[in-house]
């Protein structure tokens, strides 16, 4: 079974008691509705006929039982609806509450897919999909309840004549199948077009927004606004098409309900050997109306189920391996970036060089198992990071170029690297990243919130926080991608100086991407990269650093 489906089913099993209560209550609602309406129709019609037949017949008519039953049904229906709502939503809330963390744990194991998830559109989409799965819980009861309602209605219609029941069932079938056909053929393509149009709107808006200064400089604000409005109009037009096609579902439901009611009332008139009595026809007609309403509900339930399935299908490929599976973790700490390349032992300081776009970041992320690469290209601690059951992450403390931060406090972000680190250690790491002064100056210190994506910090501060976080993780290799990009010369010098002191102290190895002269001086070996694909690095020249600097006597900066 696919992993997500297994997770969902486990939660559904866990919520079973609540779901059973919700289902039973929902059956009470639909059957109660059908019975209430049908019985009332029968009762009135029978009463009228008895009343017409004279006082003697009227007094002989047993009115107590049906009228008591009608009142009972009204209460049953109300109570059931309340119980259904509460039990169903509690199951959904708790089920999803337990599902979310488990889902997250699996996503975190997804490795290569996680990077794509972290950016705007993809992550919003993911949240919507997870919410869509909620309907799997809320809607468990719906098919059962609506099916039962339909069955009870058909049973009541059959009391008049079997053709009435057939008319109802055929009508319900036509309603469900026809609606699905309309949804598949008409509504779905329109919804896809609309989604696409909205995507285009977002893309155009993002493009223009990125160039706001230019738009202002040429006084093109009006033009840009019109341009966005033009693309938005297309999205709105697509939205209207979608609304119109969704509306066809209602027209279809109206037409089919009308036809099946006409048939349920009319057919017994011609086909029954003896015309059924009027009270039973009233029963059949009202039961058919109730039954068709249930069928209409079934259409919605099936559509929601379809949406939940589609959401699950989108999530399924993102699921990583089972976090509790057995994995091989490296014992050693040597690194080899290409089959023929040299092996760097722990404590080495390696610089990755090459023109922009050559794939320097790709290369180091392949080494850490964060990006796909063909097996047999690299080795980390004696293991091939490309293999699925190998986890080499413990070897590396990574400060990426695209800084990824948690929307929490400074301390929370730092403790991602070491959950139990005491405050003194956090301050030490901040000091080495030349950020301690800034954080100490904030009124809440380590508990200063940094905002979504670290929005309350400047670009350089985010980079240094990410650096401090990497420092806290006592891994054999520190992997830094352009750690001083965007820092002013003085701060850069400070950061590199303390980095060197730190490396001397901890004897950690360093893999660094940097084209800045001050960074170059820190490393003793260099790997020249010129094109990296999933098949590995195509041209990897490995050489000694231009000005070899031993770990003991390096002079950082100028």
């Amino acid at each position, binding site marked *: 079974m696919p992993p997500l489906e297994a997770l969902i089913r486990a939660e559904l099993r866990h919520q079973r008691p609540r779901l059973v209560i919700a289902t039973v209550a929902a059956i009470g609602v639909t059957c109660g509705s059908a019975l209430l*309406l049908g*019985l*009332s*129709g029968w009762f009135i019609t029978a*009463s009228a006929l008895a*009343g017409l037949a004279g006082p003697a017949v*009227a007094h002989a008519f047993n*009115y107590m039982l049906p*009228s008591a039953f*009608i009142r009972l*049904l*009204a209460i049953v*229906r*109300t109570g059931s609806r309340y119980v259904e709502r509460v039990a169903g939503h*509690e199951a959904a*809330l708790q089920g999803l*509450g337990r599902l979310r*963390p488990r889902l*997250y*744990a699996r996503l*975190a*194991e997804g490795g290569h897919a996680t990077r794509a998830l972290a950016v705007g559109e993809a992550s*919003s989409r*993911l*949240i919507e999909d997870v919410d869509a799965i909620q309907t799997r819980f809320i809607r468990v009861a719906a098919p059962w309840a609506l099916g039962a309602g339909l069955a009870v209605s058909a049973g009541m219609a059959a009391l008049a004549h079997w053709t009435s029941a057939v008319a109802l069932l055929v009508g319900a079938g036509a309603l469900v199948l026809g609606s699905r056909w309309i949804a598949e053929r008409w509504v779905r393509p329109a919804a896809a077009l609309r989604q696409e149009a909205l995507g285009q*709107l*977002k893309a155009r*808006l993002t493009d223009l927004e*990125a*160039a*706001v*200064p*230019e738009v*202002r*400089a*040429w006084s093109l604000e009006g033009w840009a606004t019109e341009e966005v409005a033009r693309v*938005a*109009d297309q999205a*709105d037009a697509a939205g209207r098409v979608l*609304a119109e096609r969704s*509306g066809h579902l*209602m*027209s279809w439901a*109206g037409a089919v309900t*009308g*036809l099946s009611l*006409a048939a349920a*009332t009319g057919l017994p008139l011609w086909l029954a050997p003896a*015309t059924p009595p*009027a009270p039973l026809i009233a029963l059949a*007609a009202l039961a058919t109306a109730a039954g068709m309403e249930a069928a209409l509900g079934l259409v919605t339930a099936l559509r929601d189920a379809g949406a939940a399935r589609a959401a699950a299908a989108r999530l399924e490929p993102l699921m990583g391996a089972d976090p509790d599976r057995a994995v091989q973790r490296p014992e050693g700490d040597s690194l080899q970036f290409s089959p023929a390349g040299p092996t760097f032992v722990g404590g080495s300081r390696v610089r990755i060089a090459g023109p922009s776009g050559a794939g320097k970041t790709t290369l180091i992320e392949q080494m850490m198992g964060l990006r796909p690469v063909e097996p047999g290209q690299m080795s980390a601690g004696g293991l091939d990071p490309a293999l699925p059951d190998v986890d080499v*992450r413990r070897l590396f403390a990574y400060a990426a170029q695209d800084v*990824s931060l*948690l*929307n929490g406090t400074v301390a929370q972000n730092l403790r*991602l690297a070491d959950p139990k680190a005491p405050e003194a250690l956090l301050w030490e790491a901040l000091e080495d990243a030349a950020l301690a002064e800034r954080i100490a100056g904030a009124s809440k210190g380590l508990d200063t919130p940094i905002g979504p*994506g670290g929005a309350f910090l*400047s670009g350089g501060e985010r980079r240094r926080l990410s650096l401090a976080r990497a420092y806290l993780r006592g891994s054999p290799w520190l992997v830094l991608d352009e750690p001083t990009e*965007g820092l*002013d010369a003085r701060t850069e010098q400070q950061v590199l100086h303390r980095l060197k002191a730190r490396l001397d102290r901890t004897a950690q190895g360093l893999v660094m991407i940097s084209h800045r002269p001050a960074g170059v001086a820190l490393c003793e070996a260099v790997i020249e990269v010129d094109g990296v694909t999933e098949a590995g690095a195509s041209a990897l020249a490995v050489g000694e650093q231009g000005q070899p600097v031993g770990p003991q006597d390096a002079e950082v900066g100028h």
Partner: protein
Amino acid sequence: MTSSAPSPTHLRHWLRDTARPERRALGMAALMTTADVLPAVGFAAGLALTLTAWPDRTTSILMGIVIMLAALAVRGVLSQRALMTAAGAAARIKGAVRRGVVTDLFSGRRSSETGLIAAVEGVERLDGHYTRFEPARMAAVMGPIVVLAAIALASPVSALILTATLIPFAFGMWLAGTAAAAESRTQFAALERLSGLFLDCIRALPAVAAFEATGTVVGDVERASDGLAARTGKVLRIAFLSSGILEFFSALSVALVAVYCGFQLLGLMPVPIPEPLDLGRAVFALVLAPEVYAPLRRMAAAYHDRQAAEAVVPTLERTPVPPALPTPRLARSPALKFHKVSIAYDGAPPVISDFDLEVRPGQVIALTGASGTGKSSLLHLFLGLSPLTGGEVEVDGHRLSHTGDWCGQVGWMGQATVVVPGTLAENIALSQPEAPRELIAAMAEQAGLSLDLDRSIDGRGGGLSGGERRRLALARAMLKQAPLFLLDEPTAHLDAAAEEALIPALAAATRGRTCLIATHSRAVMALADRVVAL
């Protein structure tokens, strides 16, 4: 978004005022939604006719069946028309709101992060409010009255009974509604927060995965989810109470009408009621009884659409537009004087403070320093995109605090270049639409853009390399022949070769103009008369 929660009344007023131009269309949609009860009346009449005629097997049976069929078909078509009308109105409302957001975005009155989301997703969340909730809300008032009137024609007593159930219903709804509305608003907000937390955790996935910190974060998500589930259990019970009340009275009304009609028809009412009731009238009243509550139930079902819309209102509200200030014309390259300039965005600590600089006419200044030290913010001052919170900037003696901005009189080149679908020439002429063709060609040449001027370019800048885009921006800026030229990281994200190739064109473009260049590049700094470190 502001930190203090805006009052629900304020949110509702905003939603109402925004819809004002579309009041007629929305009213029409509501009218059609209300008219939805007429086919229901027709259906009830058809069934009543059929049943009355049934014992005698007259042709009225057929007539009754045809009426039922027609009524239901009309009902379907009517709902579709109502939906379409409302969707049209909603699209126009959304368009107007989006236009406001986008205008603010392009005039720097709104930050890009919130603006982009507000303009697309935020605006879309208004949809359900206008297509579903608004028509349903208006129909919820008129619908029951129309149905009650129809029932009263057949059986005034039944109508009276139904009206009697409506009164305690309305009272109960008001009681539960005020409690439930507050609770459900809290609940909605809590759900949003949880979604937000999950989203934040997803966005941090690369770091979480790299640091093997899944356990820590999963713990956070778990606690938040559990907390919400525990709190919500109680909230739900109250929230569903209002729908329970609705359900109870809706069921009760059917039962009461059925029992009353039955007893009256049997002639067994304990108190004689002077109402001439026959089978047809009784069936008519019974079938219509649930329809009294149907519009209310529809409104209740659309309630979350309103909540979604209310939640998004604070992100869509427009910031007040400052009055336009008169900007004098610059005849020549101006002298610039920055005196104790401070820039702070929305209460955040200033990105730059007490900045002093004097620039002579025609002087080229390179501004350098780490990102976040305010280089771009200084350039943005001239475009009105950053707030001058302290000090003064003088352009040839004209004070920026008096002129507001210098839009239309500065040349700009940044990292992102606007590209419009059209030819290359049209793209260059964006800064100066009436420029003659020869001048465009000359500027393209000076910028080193050796492409065919009639080459067509799509809106995504297809076919242009990063370097070519910069040259396009440069040609455009030179065509403008503006006396003041601002360049924001003109060579960022270019590789060394592309940067080197661009330098001569930059040198040509900057010569003789007052220029401010924000840059990290040493090659670009070499073009400047003076390098200023921030």
